[in-house]
Protein backbone atom coordinates (compact mmCIF):
# COMPACT_ATOMS: atom_id res chain seq x y z
CA UNK A 1 0.00 0.00 0.00
CA UNK A 2 2.76 2.44 1.00
CA UNK A 3 4.63 1.43 -2.09
CA UNK A 4 1.67 2.41 -4.22
CA UNK A 5 1.36 5.78 -2.47
CA UNK A 6 5.08 6.43 -2.92
CA UNK A 7 4.85 5.43 -6.56
CA UNK A 8 1.92 7.76 -7.23
CA UNK A 9 3.67 10.54 -5.31
CA UNK A 10 6.82 10.16 -7.40
CA UNK A 11 4.71 10.05 -10.54
CA UNK A 12 3.02 13.31 -9.56
CA UNK A 13 6.34 14.94 -8.64
CA UNK A 14 7.82 13.83 -11.94
CA UNK A 15 4.83 15.11 -13.89
CA UNK A 16 4.65 18.53 -12.24
CA UNK A 17 8.37 19.31 -12.10
CA UNK A 18 9.26 17.50 -15.30
CA UNK A 19 6.71 19.35 -17.40
CA UNK A 20 7.73 22.66 -15.86
CA UNK A 21 11.43 22.00 -16.41
CA UNK A 22 10.80 20.95 -20.00
CA UNK A 23 8.69 24.00 -20.83
CA UNK A 24 11.27 26.28 -19.28
CA UNK A 25 14.08 24.56 -21.14
CA UNK A 26 12.27 24.82 -24.48
CA UNK A 27 11.57 28.52 -23.87
CA UNK A 28 15.25 29.15 -23.15
CA UNK A 29 16.29 27.10 -26.19
CA UNK A 30 14.01 29.09 -28.52
CA UNK A 31 15.21 32.38 -27.03
CA UNK A 32 18.89 31.53 -27.41
CA UNK A 33 18.35 30.08 -30.88
CA UNK A 34 17.00 33.47 -31.91
CA UNK A 35 20.04 35.20 -30.38
CA UNK A 36 22.51 32.93 -32.13
CA UNK A 37 20.55 32.81 -35.38
CA UNK A 38 23.26 34.72 -37.26
CA UNK A 39 25.72 31.84 -36.83
CA UNK A 40 24.87 29.47 -39.65
CA UNK A 41 25.42 25.76 -39.21
CA UNK A 42 26.03 23.37 -42.12
CA UNK A 43 26.51 19.65 -42.23
CA UNK A 44 28.46 20.12 -45.43
CA UNK A 45 32.17 19.35 -45.46
CA UNK A 46 33.23 21.66 -48.27
CA UNK A 47 33.63 25.35 -47.48
CA UNK A 48 33.03 27.47 -50.64
CA UNK A 49 35.75 30.14 -50.34
CA UNK A 50 38.11 28.24 -48.17
CA UNK A 51 41.25 30.25 -48.88
CA UNK A 52 39.85 33.39 -47.30
CA UNK A 53 38.98 32.02 -43.90
CA UNK A 54 40.38 30.26 -40.87
CA UNK A 55 38.80 27.38 -39.00
CA UNK A 56 38.90 25.82 -35.57
CA UNK A 57 37.15 22.89 -33.89
CA UNK A 58 34.27 23.81 -31.56
CA UNK A 59 32.10 21.51 -29.50
CA UNK A 60 29.18 21.56 -27.09
CA UNK A 61 27.86 18.85 -24.83
CA UNK A 62 24.91 18.25 -22.57
CA UNK A 63 23.43 15.50 -20.40
CA UNK A 64 19.66 15.57 -19.92
CA UNK A 65 17.65 13.25 -17.73
CA UNK A 66 14.07 12.14 -18.24
CA UNK A 67 11.63 12.46 -15.32
CA UNK A 68 9.86 9.72 -13.40
CA UNK A 69 6.49 10.26 -15.07
CA UNK A 70 7.88 10.15 -18.58
CA UNK A 71 9.86 7.04 -17.84
CA UNK A 72 6.66 5.36 -16.65
CA UNK A 73 4.79 6.44 -19.79
CA UNK A 74 7.67 5.20 -21.94
CA UNK A 75 7.67 1.84 -20.15
CA UNK A 76 3.95 1.50 -20.81
CA UNK A 77 4.53 2.42 -24.44
CA UNK A 78 7.26 -0.18 -24.60
CA UNK A 79 4.69 -2.78 -23.73
CA UNK A 80 2.17 -1.73 -26.39
CA UNK A 81 4.64 -0.56 -29.01
CA UNK A 82 4.55 2.58 -31.14
CA UNK A 83 5.95 6.07 -30.95
CA UNK A 84 7.62 6.89 -27.65
CA UNK A 85 7.00 10.64 -27.67
CA UNK A 86 8.32 10.98 -24.10
CA UNK A 87 11.83 10.19 -25.28
CA UNK A 88 11.47 12.06 -28.56
CA UNK A 89 11.17 15.37 -26.78
CA UNK A 90 14.08 14.43 -24.49
CA UNK A 91 16.36 13.79 -27.45
CA UNK A 92 15.21 16.92 -29.25
CA UNK A 93 15.96 19.02 -26.20
CA UNK A 94 19.39 17.46 -25.76
CA UNK A 95 20.36 17.87 -29.43
CA UNK A 96 19.20 21.46 -29.70
CA UNK A 97 20.93 22.36 -26.45
CA UNK A 98 24.21 20.74 -27.55
CA UNK A 99 24.10 22.58 -30.90
CA UNK A 100 23.39 25.84 -29.07
CA UNK A 101 26.38 25.36 -26.79
CA UNK A 102 28.53 24.63 -29.82
CA UNK A 103 27.27 27.87 -31.40
CA UNK A 104 28.09 29.76 -28.22
CA UNK A 105 31.64 28.38 -28.40
CA UNK A 106 31.81 29.49 -32.05
CA UNK A 107 30.63 32.98 -31.07
CA UNK A 108 33.38 33.18 -28.43
CA UNK A 109 35.91 32.36 -31.15
CA UNK A 110 34.49 35.14 -33.30
CA UNK A 111 33.26 32.76 -36.00
CA UNK A 112 30.22 33.38 -38.20
CA UNK A 113 29.51 29.85 -39.43
CA UNK A 114 30.07 26.24 -38.43
CA UNK A 115 30.78 23.51 -40.99
CA UNK A 116 30.56 19.72 -40.94
CA UNK A 117 28.31 19.50 -37.89
CA UNK A 118 28.41 16.09 -36.24
CA UNK A 119 26.26 14.81 -33.41
CA UNK A 120 27.50 12.03 -31.19
CA UNK A 121 25.32 10.38 -28.59
CA UNK A 122 27.32 9.13 -25.63
CA UNK A 123 26.13 6.70 -23.00
CA UNK A 124 27.73 6.96 -19.59
CA UNK A 125 24.40 6.28 -17.95
CA UNK A 126 23.53 3.20 -19.90
CA UNK A 127 23.53 0.03 -17.85
CA UNK A 128 22.47 1.77 -14.64
CA UNK A 129 19.41 -0.26 -13.63
CA UNK A 130 18.86 -1.08 -17.28
CA UNK A 131 16.94 2.07 -18.18
CA UNK A 132 17.67 4.94 -20.55
CA UNK A 133 17.47 7.52 -17.78
CA UNK A 134 19.68 10.16 -19.30
CA UNK A 135 20.93 11.01 -22.75
CA UNK A 136 24.28 12.64 -23.52
CA UNK A 137 24.89 14.52 -26.72
CA UNK A 138 28.11 16.01 -28.10
CA UNK A 139 27.82 18.38 -31.06
CA UNK A 140 30.98 19.41 -32.86
CA UNK A 141 32.05 21.10 -36.03
CA UNK A 142 34.57 23.45 -37.62
CA UNK A 143 33.91 27.08 -36.79
CA UNK A 144 34.96 29.40 -39.59
CA UNK A 145 35.62 33.13 -39.67
CA UNK A 146 36.67 35.35 -42.51
CA UNK A 147 40.30 36.31 -42.36
CA UNK A 148 40.76 39.97 -41.59
Amino acid at each position, binding site marked *: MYDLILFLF*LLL*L*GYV*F*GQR*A*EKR*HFRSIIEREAQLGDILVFSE*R*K*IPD*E*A*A*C*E*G*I*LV*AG*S*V*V*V*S*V*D*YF*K*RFVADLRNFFGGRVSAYESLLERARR*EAVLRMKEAARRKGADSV*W*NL*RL*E*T*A*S*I*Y*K*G*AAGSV*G*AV*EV*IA*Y*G*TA*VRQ*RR
Partner: protein
Amino acid sequence: MIVTNIETVPGKTIVKHLGLVNGNTVRSKHAGRDIMAGLKNIFGGELKGYTELLTESREEALQRMLDQARAIGANAVVNVRFSTSSVAAGAAELFAYGTAVVVE
Protein backbone atom coordinates in the same frame (compact mmCIF):
# COMPACT_ATOMS: atom_id res chain seq x y z
CA MET B 1 47.94 23.62 -33.19
CA ILE B 2 44.96 23.88 -35.52
CA VAL B 3 42.18 21.34 -35.19
CA THR B 4 39.34 20.92 -37.68
CA ASN B 5 36.87 18.19 -38.49
CA ILE B 6 36.95 18.69 -42.25
CA GLU B 7 39.57 17.28 -44.61
CA THR B 8 41.44 20.54 -44.97
CA VAL B 9 42.64 23.46 -42.89
CA PRO B 10 40.84 26.56 -44.22
CA GLY B 11 43.24 29.18 -45.54
CA LYS B 12 46.26 26.89 -45.39
CA THR B 13 47.68 24.14 -47.55
CA ILE B 14 48.63 20.74 -46.24
CA VAL B 15 52.18 19.86 -47.19
CA LYS B 16 52.58 16.52 -45.41
CA HIS B 17 50.36 13.82 -43.92
CA LEU B 18 51.75 12.11 -40.84
CA GLY B 19 49.00 9.56 -40.21
CA LEU B 20 46.42 8.80 -37.56
CA VAL B 21 46.65 10.15 -34.03
CA ASN B 22 44.21 9.38 -31.24
CA GLY B 23 43.45 9.97 -27.60
CA ASN B 24 40.98 8.48 -25.18
CA THR B 25 39.63 8.69 -21.65
CA VAL B 26 37.53 6.30 -19.66
CA ARG B 27 35.41 8.02 -17.08
CA SER B 28 32.96 6.88 -14.50
CA LYS B 29 30.56 8.77 -12.32
CA HIS B 30 31.28 9.08 -8.62
CA ALA B 31 28.88 8.43 -5.78
CA GLY B 32 28.04 12.06 -4.95
CA ARG B 33 27.08 12.77 -8.51
CA ASP B 34 25.13 9.54 -8.58
CA ILE B 35 22.88 10.61 -5.72
CA MET B 36 22.16 13.95 -7.36
CA ALA B 37 21.50 12.18 -10.63
CA GLY B 38 19.11 9.81 -8.85
CA LEU B 39 17.10 12.81 -7.66
CA LYS B 40 17.17 14.36 -11.11
CA ASN B 41 15.84 11.11 -12.48
CA ILE B 42 12.61 11.85 -10.64
CA PHE B 43 12.33 15.53 -11.54
CA GLY B 44 13.96 15.45 -14.96
CA GLY B 45 16.24 18.12 -16.39
CA GLU B 46 19.89 18.63 -17.09
CA LEU B 47 22.45 16.66 -15.07
CA LYS B 48 25.00 19.45 -14.62
CA GLY B 49 27.58 17.27 -12.90
CA TYR B 50 27.52 14.83 -15.78
CA THR B 51 27.66 17.58 -18.37
CA GLU B 52 30.82 18.86 -16.68
CA LEU B 53 32.25 15.35 -16.62
CA LEU B 54 31.48 14.88 -20.31
CA THR B 55 33.06 18.23 -21.21
CA GLU B 56 36.17 17.46 -19.15
CA SER B 57 36.66 14.07 -20.73
CA ARG B 58 36.14 15.51 -24.21
CA GLU B 59 38.90 18.07 -23.57
CA GLU B 60 41.10 15.37 -22.07
CA ALA B 61 40.74 13.03 -25.04
CA LEU B 62 41.39 15.92 -27.43
CA GLN B 63 44.45 16.97 -25.42
CA ARG B 64 45.93 13.48 -25.53
CA MET B 65 45.40 13.36 -29.26
CA LEU B 66 47.13 16.74 -29.64
CA ASP B 67 50.07 15.61 -27.48
CA GLN B 68 50.53 12.66 -29.75
CA ALA B 69 50.37 14.87 -32.84
CA ARG B 70 52.92 17.27 -31.37
CA ALA B 71 55.24 14.38 -30.59
CA ILE B 72 55.41 13.35 -34.23
CA GLY B 73 55.98 16.90 -35.41
CA ALA B 74 52.56 17.90 -36.72
CA ASN B 75 51.16 21.41 -36.47
CA ALA B 76 47.54 20.61 -37.27
CA VAL B 77 45.05 17.77 -36.96
CA VAL B 78 42.29 17.39 -39.55
CA ASN B 79 39.24 15.18 -39.87
CA VAL B 80 38.77 14.85 -36.12
CA ARG B 81 35.99 12.54 -34.92
CA PHE B 82 34.63 11.75 -31.51
CA SER B 83 33.43 8.30 -30.68
CA THR B 84 32.00 6.77 -27.53
CA SER B 85 31.65 3.26 -26.26
CA SER B 86 30.52 1.84 -22.94
CA VAL B 87 33.05 -0.47 -21.33
CA ALA B 88 31.05 -1.49 -18.27
CA ALA B 89 27.94 -0.29 -16.47
CA GLY B 90 28.69 3.17 -15.11
CA ALA B 91 31.87 3.71 -17.12
CA ALA B 92 32.23 4.99 -20.64
CA GLU B 93 35.02 5.69 -23.04
CA LEU B 94 35.41 8.84 -25.05
CA PHE B 95 37.72 8.53 -28.01
CA ALA B 96 39.02 11.26 -30.29
CA TYR B 97 40.93 10.55 -33.48
CA GLY B 98 42.14 12.43 -36.50
CA THR B 99 44.87 12.79 -39.11
CA ALA B 100 48.04 14.63 -38.10
CA VAL B 101 49.33 16.93 -40.84
CA VAL B 102 51.88 19.64 -41.44
CA VAL B 103 50.43 22.83 -42.98
CA GLU B 104 52.20 25.46 -45.04
